[in-house]
């Protein structure tokens, strides 16, 4: 399904300086998100998933250098001032964080924090704001919503707090939600509920979602498309079914093999050999080459570009795996 993209990211590079050396956290990241589309960003810790989200919203430029282009419905965001970004943040693009325990202000009631967003982005009168706040809490499945408005965050459990966070993020009906590992800190039963909630709201409100996660299970369940990141670059991108069924990049293959599925008890789990490279000492060629079984001289010497390999798939690899099935162990 071809959609007009609401968010187009092109050639995004984010560099952090530390003690005289520069750390390229993102290198030439490009992707698009369509209306109502759910894009998954997967990769190991430190591969640049969260930095991508923060760069899109203009948070990363507070502590690093961001180049490239982020276009939101045709408007360039990277060159906008903080003041001009404010009406877009929260109203058009919202974000939820990994850690529900610290993402709410502990000193304000849940109601105050919900109303605050509405105050910033809508001109609803006082009474209507309260009604909308109750409606939002109800929408995210918090029982007895009206009576919980005056409760403080510490009176909610982790899963409930993440629901509140989602309610706050969605209060102004954004068109794109950036979800930074929204379920990592929650236990498994709650995870599924929160993911269902995000998906349901996304399709009800025709809201695009960028779902950052390191859990391929989550990707398979929730996303339309997936982008696999490694050492600050996107190495493979495409529709979820195709990528997971027939991964081309050796790193994607490795990620999938690392998911313990149908393994006999008490056998050693698979892990990709080696560790991700330090951002300060990136190899000149493919960043994954030192860990890759299929790497050649060319892989070590030159960096493969992210190229279109089929109608809607992109890949950055010289020696792609191209079996149609059964490549995962």
């Amino acid at each position, binding site marked *: 399904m071809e959609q007009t993209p609401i968010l187009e990211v092109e050639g995004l590079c984010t560099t952090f300086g530390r003690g005289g050396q520069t750390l390229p956290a993102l290198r030439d990241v490009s992707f698009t998100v369509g209306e109502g589309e759910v894009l998954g960003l997967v990769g190991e810790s430190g591969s640049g998933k969260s930095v991508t989200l923060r760069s899109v*919203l203009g*948070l990363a430029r507070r502590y690093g250098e961001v180049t490239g282009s982020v276009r939101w419905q045709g408007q360039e965001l990277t060159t906008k001032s*903080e003041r001009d*970004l*404010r*009406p*877009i*943040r*929260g*109203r058009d*693009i*919202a*974000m939820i*964080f*990994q*850690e529900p325990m*610290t*993402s*709410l*202000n*502990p*000193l*304000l009631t849940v109601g105050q924090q919900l109303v*605050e*967003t509405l105050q*910033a*982005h809508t001109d609803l009168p006082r009474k209507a704001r309260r009604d909308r706040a109750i409606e939002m809490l109800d929408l995210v499945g*918090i*029982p007895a919503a009206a009576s*919980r408005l005056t*409760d403080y965050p*510490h*009176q*909610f*459990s982790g*899963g*409930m707090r993440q629901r509140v*966070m989602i309610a*706050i*993020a969605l209060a102004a009906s954004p068109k794109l939600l*950036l979800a930074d590992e929204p379920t990592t800190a929650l*236990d498994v*039963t*709650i995870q599924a*509920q929160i993911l269902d909630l995000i998906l349901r709201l996304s399709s009800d409100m025709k809201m695009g979602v960028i779902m950052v996660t390191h859990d391929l299970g989550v990707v398979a369940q929730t996303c339309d498309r997936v982008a696999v990141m490694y050492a600050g670059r996107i190495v493979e991108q495409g529709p979820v079914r195709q990528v997971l069924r027939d991964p081309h990049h050796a790193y994607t293959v490795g990620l999938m093999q690392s998911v313990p599925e149908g393994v006999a008890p008490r056998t050693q789990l698979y892990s990709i050999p080696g560790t991700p490279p330090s951002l300060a000492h990136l190899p000149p060629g493919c960043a994954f080459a030192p860990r890759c079984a299929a790497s050649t001289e060319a892989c070590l010497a030159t960096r493969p570009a992210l190229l279109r390999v089929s109608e809607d798939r992109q890949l950055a690899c010289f020696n792609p795996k191209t079996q149609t099935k059964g490549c995962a162990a």
Partner: protein
Amino acid sequence: MSDTAVSSSAPTRPSRLQLALGKPGFLLGCVIIGFSALLALMPHVFAPYDPNFIDYVAIRKPPSWEHPFGTDSLGRDSFSRVIHAYRVNMQMAILATVFALVIGVIVGALVGYYRGIADMIFGRVVDAIITFPFLVLVIAVVAVLGPGLVNMYIAITLVGWVYYARLMRAEIIAQMGNDYSDAGLVMGYSDRRIIFRHLLPNAITPVLIYWMTDMALAILLGSSLGYLGLGAQPPQAEWGVLIAEGRNFITTAWWLSLMPGIAIVLTGLGFSLIGDGLADLLRPRG
């Protein structure tokens, strides 16, 4: 389902007031400071004589029923003078600290939030001021401005705000590590709203506790300057001034310096006990 919320009225958790009542030190501090405030507000009710009334027939009388703390070399009632001094000295605790508190909190919050060049300059200023002993720096400023209470407040504020700002900056930076400050940004809130509505209330507790301790220090410092002749000026009844007046007669009329000294220790103790108790009470419980 583990996803249900915790009841909002858990009966097992004692309220802050109940906790406070269980702390004898904190209670004692409150009693001392409460009584001191009473003396400061209406010294006339408690003092038997006018503090400046001179009785030529009662020069340097030792403590008696008539003059509980004795009389000084001009025949003024020492007890009345110590009580009237509460007004000046309690006023010092407030006025020497409150401006430093306000300036320090605002500057500390801003440099902590924005960092950058302003923060680097701030760091140098802090280093420069903290290198010198507090008293030496205050004396230097008073020497420039001239002695007197108002100049003393200005001098203490000029030096003291740094300590509040330093503490506030560190707390703001620590609070910014929590996602709610970034969450405020991505919700499109203004910097002012994030700093003053979200970060500051979460970061201010240690500053308020330090404030209590600082009030005790302010009384000590104020009386030191009074003793040195740089703060309150005679014939005003002020503890430092009173101690200085009694200094020449310390072997023959010891009560003249001892009684205001006890008053200093007592109020200082009171503020410290409150600060200590607050630190305990306001510590996040979880």
